[in-house]
Structure formats: C-alpha cells, structure tokens
C-alpha cells in the first residue's frame, strides 16, 4: 500500500521534472510561430519569423560560420583524437599518467578560464608575430582543443572493448601495417568514429563561451549572434533560429546515439 503511494508520488514528480526540462524549449519553439512580436502572448500561427531569417544576411553568415567551425574542427579533432586514443590503447601498460592528466585538462577546466586563456594568448601572439588574428582559425583551434579529449576517450574505450588477439590475427593473416589500419582498425572502430564525429560536432555547435572569447569581429557563430541579439533586445527572430538549432542538435544527437548503440556488446 505504502509502496504504491511512493511509486505514484515518484511518477508525478517525474512528469513534473520533465515539464520543467522541456518548458523553456517548448516556449522558444511555440513563440517562433507567433504571429505577433509579443514575447508574452501568443496571437496566432505564422511563419513570418522564419521568412525573415532567410533575408537576414548576418544570420546566414553566422550559420555558415557555425557549420564551417563545427565541421572543420570535428575533422581535425577526429584525426588527432583517434591517434591519441589508439596510442593510449596500444601503450596502456605503460605509465601514462601525464597523458591522462593532459587529456582531462580541457574537460575539467572551467569554460570561462579556457576561453579567456586562449583569447589572451591569441591576442599576445598576434601582437608579437602577426599570426593568429582572432577569427575562424582561432576558433577552430580552440574547438579542436576541447574536442580532442572526447574523441580520444571514445576511440580508446572502443579499442579496449576489442579482443586484443584480433590485432595479432590481422598480422598473422599477412596484413602489412598500412593494410591493418585500412582493412582492420578503421572498419572495426567505424561506429566509434561516427559517434565521436557527431559528439564533436554537437559540442562545437553547442559551445558559446569559448567561441565568444576566441571569435573575431567577422566570425560570429549562431550562438554568438543570438547572444548579441538578446543583449540588444529580444527579437522574435531569435525564437525561429533557436528552434532550428534545437531541431538540428536533436537530430545529430539521436544519430550519434543510434551509432553508439549499434556497437556489439
């Protein structure tokens, strides 16, 4: 009897929490279809804010910047992180404490410290050498830095889950080092590669603080644009662009989940 009451209470609490989690997103999505530009009352369904997005060059260029940043940084992080992940696996019996610390550093460092360190560094390097002017390249560098650990850990855990004799079987079956990479390692870790790419991509799209501090005047991404728009005074267009981003990230995240689930146990 008492158990059932507890269970009912828990279920109610669950739905309440779920409402709490989705309410802010639902409001954004709902008001993106609002016919009026009021933030307080919903007056009817309209797509006018979406049409207005298409004519806003700032938003389009911010979208392009976000995509370039996310794709380029994810690709670079995938290559570098993959190598580290494999190195950590292959040499897991050695003492690699320093490497673990180095890899966890970007994860534990508070965003803001991460962002301003890079900013201060890039500004100084630029002053002294003329290189690394704040802009997309510096943002890519910063994003790769926080993506590497995630890629490395995903790849590492995939390798750890494999039967170690598979590597020997590949050698035994006449695969040269290069062929082992192409015909054995890459196909075997393919699901992990895909989910690592999508995670990197999501992390990049999701990031605001680090992008904000490493961006140049021409390289605003969508979150930076939204931030600026909020600061200037809320415009209903933000709801529309935010809704699109919510949709895109949800899709990317679900794809990543599907691929990570397909891994054999």
């Amino acid at each position, binding site marked *: 009897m008492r158990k059932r009451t507890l269970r009912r209470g828990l*279920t109610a*609490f669950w739905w309440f929490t779920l409402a709490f989690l989705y309410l802010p997103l639902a409001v954004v999505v709902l008001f993106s279809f609002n016919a009026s530009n009021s933030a307080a009352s919903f007056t009817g369904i309209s797509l006018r804010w979406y049409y207005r997005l298409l004519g806003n060059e700032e938003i389009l260029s911010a979208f392009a910047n976000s995509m370039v940043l996310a794709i380029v940084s994810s690709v670079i992080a995938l290559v570098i992180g993959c190598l580290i992940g494999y190195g950590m696996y292959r040499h897991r019996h050695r003492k690699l404490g320093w490497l673990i610390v180095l890899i966890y*550093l970007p994860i534990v460092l*508070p965003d*803001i410290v991460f962002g301003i360190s890079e900013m*201060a560094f890039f500004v100084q390097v630029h002053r002294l050498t003329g290189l690394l002017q704040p802009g997309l390249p510096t943002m890519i560098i910063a994003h790769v830095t926080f993506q590497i650990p995630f890629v490395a850990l995903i790849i590492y855990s995939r390798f750890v889950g494999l039967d170690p004799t598979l590597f020997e079987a590949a050698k035994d079956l006449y695969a040269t080092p290069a062929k082992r990479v192409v015909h054995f390692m890459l196909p075997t870790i393919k699901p992990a590669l895909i989910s690592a790419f999508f995670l990197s991509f999501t992390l990049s799209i*999701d990031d605001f603080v680090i992008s904000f501090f490493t961006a140049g005047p021409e390289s605003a991404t969508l979150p930076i644009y939204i*931030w600026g728009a909020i600061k200037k005074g809320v415009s209903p267009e*933000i709801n529309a662009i935010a809704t699109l981003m919510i949709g895109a990230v949800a899709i990317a995240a679900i794809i990543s989940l599907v691929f990570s689930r397909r891994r054999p146990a």
Partner: protein
Amino acid sequence: MSYAGVIPSARSRGMVRESRHLLFTVAPGATWILVFLVLPSAYLMGVAFMTNGPYGLPEMPLSLESFKRLAGFGFLGWSPGNLYTLLRSLWQTLVSTGLVVLVAYPIAYYITTCREKWRPILLLLVVVPSWTNQVIRTFGWMNLLAPGTPLSELAEALGLISANMGLYPSNFAVTLGLVYNFLPFMVLPLYAAFEKLDTAQVEAAQDLYASPVRAFWHAVFPQTLPGLLAGIVLVAIPAFGMYVIPELLGGGKGMMLGNLVANQFAGGSNWPLGAAGAILMLLATFVGLFVMRRIGKRLGGGEEVVI
C-alpha cells in the same frame, strides 16, 4: 642463467620501435593541448601578477595589485562589491548543487524502477535538453520569467514580487537556470549508481532494520555515494565558474565570479584582475576535484569517483 646479464639487441630494438610508435600517435594531440591550452593557461597565470596598463593590457612590473583589487581594495579604498560577487558565486553553487541533488536523486531512482527497455529512453529524455545550446536554453527561461508571463503573474499574485517586475533578472532566476542546466549531469552518475545497486544488500537491510528510512540510510545511500560525489563534481565545479546564466538571468545584482572575470576581458579591460579571478576559479576547481577524490576513495568502498 648466465644469460640474465646480456642485453639482447632484439629487445632494445623492439623498445625503440614501441617508443617511436607512442610518440607518433600521442605527440600531435599532446602538443596541441600543450601549445593551445597549457601554454595559454600558464600565460594567463603570469598575467595575474602583472600591472594593468592604460589599454587594459598587462604590463611590467610584476605586482600583486590585481589580487588586492580582487579582494576589493581600489583607488577609492575598500569596497565590498567583488567580495559580494565571490560570496554570491559560492552561495549560488551550494544552493543550486543542493537543489539538483534533491531533484536528481528521486528521478534517477524512478528511472531504475522502470522496465529495462524503457530506461535508456527515459534517460535520453532527461539528457536531450542539455544538448541544445546553453544560450538558447537560458533564453527560454528569459521568455518564461519575463514580466507579464503566466509565471511572473502568478508570483505577483502570491505577493512574491512587486508589480510588473517579472521573475528575472534576479538571483532566483540564476538559481533556477543553474538547476535546470546541471540536472542531467547529476542524474546520469546517480542512475549508474542505482543500476549497480546490490539488491541483496537492500533486502538484507529490510530484514535487519524495521523502518524503511533506516534501511535506505544503511543499505541504499552508501551504495549511491560514489555516483553522488561524481555528480557533485560535475555540477559544482562548472556552476562556480558559470558565465552565461548569471549574465542573462541575473542582471547587475546577480553577477558571479565568471562575469567578474569575463568583464575584465570584454568591457572593463583589466586583464590582470580578470586573470587573478581566473586563478581563483582554477584553485577552486582543483581543490574541489581533489577533495571529492579523497572523499570518494574513503567512502566509496575503493570505488573511484568518475574523472
């Protein structure tokens, strides 16, 4: 075994090959993190000990000026503003972490009581909002808490806020935003802990202790402690350095350490002061990690806290 003394060439050749392999795979990433994170952080720490120049950029000579400023000593004598900001950061961190625990604990437990095939989906439902951009999520709360919205009007009717003020900007809005933002980070490790729960121990405890409260306290709670500690690490450390949420939901009186630091680099332009704040944040991070690890090792029954 006269052989034992010989150092065979095949051995050393193999070791050289392995070392070269380690270098080849690990060096690009390690160098990247060293050059683009460790070096900048080291530079930032150096900046904290420099003097603020006329354009907000750090200059020689070295001084402890910025730490004094951080503690509130300025040109016009001592003012409590910075100290308030620090205390507010600490307070917000404690309150929001506590609230997150209170919400996440039953939620994580609830998920483990559901059917096995539903659990990943329920977990996903909790996590998905955190995959959207932080600025957008916070913007959603701005929409919800603005003056004239149902929530604000409800609060007004209850006499919690004065007319037409809205629930934001306020410290309450910041706390709410923090709880919202970090809830999934607590649910995940707690869920993992609940899932590993040794039910035999719980049943034994139900036999031994008549009251369910005591059974919970002696059998369930200790087993979930490692997950709880991991969750606290994942919530409290980033909460302490939070920038976006207080900036958007807090207004001038809701500022936290993150805003103080960021403002020195964006608007206020006093790099050394900002760097000193960053050092404080780093210290808090590493002390927090260290303490949690120690507690985790002592209480977690040998099981280490994640991270």
